[in-house]
């Protein structure tokens, strides 16, 4: 049927369908992981530094694969979510520290999702003072009144607009020699901006929320040691595909925007889709951004609420009414309110989007230490615990991410104190 359909379509769309047929399901899943912050950060990387961040993205991909594999393994072999495992295997102080940081990182993400919704609708000339409150009420009601599942399908379809990025990247005729040399050979820029963006790229790619999500999803599916090899393949391919999409976003934006400066508006970011959508690039970008943001605006606060409720020990698969699940609903509502309110504060939406990713990037290595400790523990994973080689590689990886975050943190804090380093 696909081939039949293909022949009736213009050449450009035929190419799209071939790509979809090959990469299909994996790509869709990978694409769903690209939320508002992700799109903004990758696009900004392309705009500001051209293809220079590509080698860095390659390193981030390696780190992502290592981290996601550990999370999947923890989920499959322990059968428990990270929230509950942290509570059981760390002291109460360490647990509350981890979960507080996780909550802060996620609230940052919720802010970015609402900022994403506002940025998307600004392309359709809707003021954020209208779009954000409405979005907050809609997302909250969809989840609390139980009709979220259906809405989720819609958001997913909308976010598919971003699958056009790889095509846009190809059609923009990037300098292939330059792209591949940037991909293989480091072209780091030794500046504060590059460092900050690097941490934002880490934060948006290796998000604490994705780690909790993955372990939880695998546990929920009932994937055990027997099915793990298959699941592991899926996880690794998924991680690589997700970053492939990110790399295409960077390349497409780098080709479309030639003035090397930080991205400041969604209209600019949308230029990258011009080769595919022509004068409707802004609309296509807006639709994708709306879908991706709305999707994550519900899932991120839900994942916080699950992890925290799980760790506190209030019922996990909670029931509907406030009385039966007070902690869960309060946590969820709190995040939506804070996220929407902060996103309403006047300021540049794209900057907000990227700053929340920096926050995630700073918190990520701390959460990763917990994950590494769990994955190293024979007590948790038995024979599936990290071996010496894996342990060494993972430790180096996390230490490198930690060092980067630390530099950015020190830099930022000293900036506040009026010192310059």
């Amino acid at each position, binding site marked *: 049927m696909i081939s039949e359909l293909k022949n009736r379509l213009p050449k450009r769309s035929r190419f799209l369908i071939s790509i979809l047929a090959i990469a299909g399901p994996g790509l869709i899943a990978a694409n769903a992981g690209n939320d508002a912050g992700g799109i903004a950060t990758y696009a900004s990387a392309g705009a500001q530094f051209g293809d220079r961040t590509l080698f860095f993205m390659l390193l981030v991909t390696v780190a992502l694969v290592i981290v996601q594999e550990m999370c999947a393994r923890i989920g499959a072999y322990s059968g*428990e979510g990270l929230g509950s495992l942290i509570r059981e295997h760390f002291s109460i102080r360490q647990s509350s520290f981890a979960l507080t940081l996780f909550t802060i990182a996620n609230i940052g993400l919720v802010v970015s999702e609402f900022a994403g919704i506002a940025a998307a609708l600004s392309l359709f000339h809707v003021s954020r003072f209208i779009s954000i409150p409405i979005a907050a009420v809609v997302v909250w009601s969809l989840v609390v009144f139980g009709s979220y599942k259906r809405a989720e399908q819609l958001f997913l379809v909308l976010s598919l607009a971003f699958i056009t990025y790889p095509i846009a990247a190809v059609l923009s005729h990037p300098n292939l020699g330059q792209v591949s040399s940037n991909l293989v050979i480091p072209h780091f820029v030794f500046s504060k901006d590059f460092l900050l963006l690097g941490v934002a790229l880490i934060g948006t790619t290796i998000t604490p929320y994705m780690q909790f999500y993955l372990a939880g999803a695998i546990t929920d599916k*009932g994937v055990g040691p027997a099915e793990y090899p298959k699941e592991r393949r899926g996880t690794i391919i998924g991680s690589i595909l997700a970053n492939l999409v990110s790399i295409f976003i960077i390349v497409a934006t780098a080709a479309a925007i030639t003035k090397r400066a930080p991205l400041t508006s969604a209209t600019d970011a949308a230029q990258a889709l011009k080769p595919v959508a022509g004068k409707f690039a802004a609309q296509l970008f807006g639709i994708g951004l709306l879908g991706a943001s709305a999707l994550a605006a519900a899932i991120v606060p839900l994942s916080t609420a699950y992890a925290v409720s799980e760790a506190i*020990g209030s*019922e*996990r698969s909670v029931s509907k009414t406030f009385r039966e699940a007070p902690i869960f609903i309060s946590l969820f509502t709190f995040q939506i309110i804070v996220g929407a309110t902060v996103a309403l504060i006047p300021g540049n939406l794209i900057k907000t989007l990227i700053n929340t990713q920096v926050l995630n990037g700073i918190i990520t290595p701390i959460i990763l230490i917990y994950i590494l400790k769990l994955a190293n523990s024979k007590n948790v994973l038995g024979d599936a615990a990290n071996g010496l080689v894996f342990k060494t590689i993972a430790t180096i990886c996390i230490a490198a991410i930690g060092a980067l975050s630390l530099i950015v943190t020190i830099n930022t804090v000293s900036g506040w104190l009026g010192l310059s380093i």
Partner: protein
Amino acid sequence: MVHKFHLPSKRKKEPRLKELRGSLISLAGVIGRKVINQEGQELGTVSDLVCHWDNNDTYPPLTGIILRLSRRKVWLSISSIEKITPTKVLLNSAKFDLREFKPRSGEVRLSKDVLDHQLIDVDGARVVRASDLYIASINDQVRLVGVDIGFKPLLRRLGPNSLRVRAIPDSVIDWATIQSFGGDNENNNHQLKLSSSRQELRRMRPGEIADLLEDLGRNERQELLNSLTPALAADALEEMEPKELEGLLRESSVAEGANYLSNMEPDEAADALRDLDDDLRRNLLKKIPKNIARQIKKVLDYEEETAGGIMTTALLIAKGSDNVKSVKQMLISGNDDAASLSAVVIVNKDGKLLYDLPLSNLVTADDNVKLKQLMKPPSTVTVDPEASLKEVAELLIESRATSIVVADSSEKPLGRILADDLLDVLLPKERFHFPRLLSS
């Protein structure tokens, strides 16, 4: 879900804990405290308390403590302990044989294995997480008597150590109504055993157990399932959310999964199998006893939302020439699930359906009467296996019966749909789940 049934045990056991309230010692408070020998010298600090899990003990006795000596962890038996107070542990001699702690069978470390882990509050029919544990002396023996599931103990543990001196119990549950688990599987020891299985657990309703199974972690879930009788486990599984049940079947071994499924009603088993991967479904069906697997496959052949997809294939079939007595014998000796037998299907010698005889008509008849003498108009209505659920519902209402026979085009009976099977699929589940994850 509101649980209306309360177990009778509740009132009986509560006063016990109340009596002890004044003398409760908090586990979280005593961890890290000094251990002092008879001469007043400090040996080290408390690393953990060890209890013995036993079926006969409502309140597990303390068998000793784990002492932290600089970097070593050594074992001190209860016999060498003079007294445990909220702030210190006093020993009854000055010299000890200090050996590394090695867990013996049945022994559980309270701080490592129980505190912060999941437990079942049998009375409340819910899964809880221990935020503190309380020990007390009962008849000169120190025992684990209660668990705190409140939020305040957590805050207390977060704060500085000095705050933990006086533990104020928050929401304490009597240990007598707690079902605990066997602890971590150290050294990849997956031998699971429910520490001491409470009688009350077996008196819970299948729906309540299903809720518990959904809320527990994987190891705990498997432990709980293993402690139930196969019949009760099967009943509870039938009550689980389809997605949760699929997950459970995936995480169980094929042998266990097949065992659960063969104890379930064929229609429920088919429902659970429907959405599994082809490989797993095939492997499970292979391990299920042939006669049961055949029944399940029959249901699996039909679409989910049709009469065939929800029917149970357990039928009681008799001939018109059989007498009432012989059918009653069949009923008594048959080990089929009685709930699904609301009527007897009477067939002719070719196996074609003649009449569906309600059990109420059967039990009131004389033993010597032949079944065909009980066949009275109106004639039996049957439904096609491909019929929609709406049609089934309409036919059931029309015939004013509690069940309806599913028969193929040649009138051979295939199965039966009970009114409650239909209600199960037509009414949305009472329990609402927040969407957990993306399309999972």
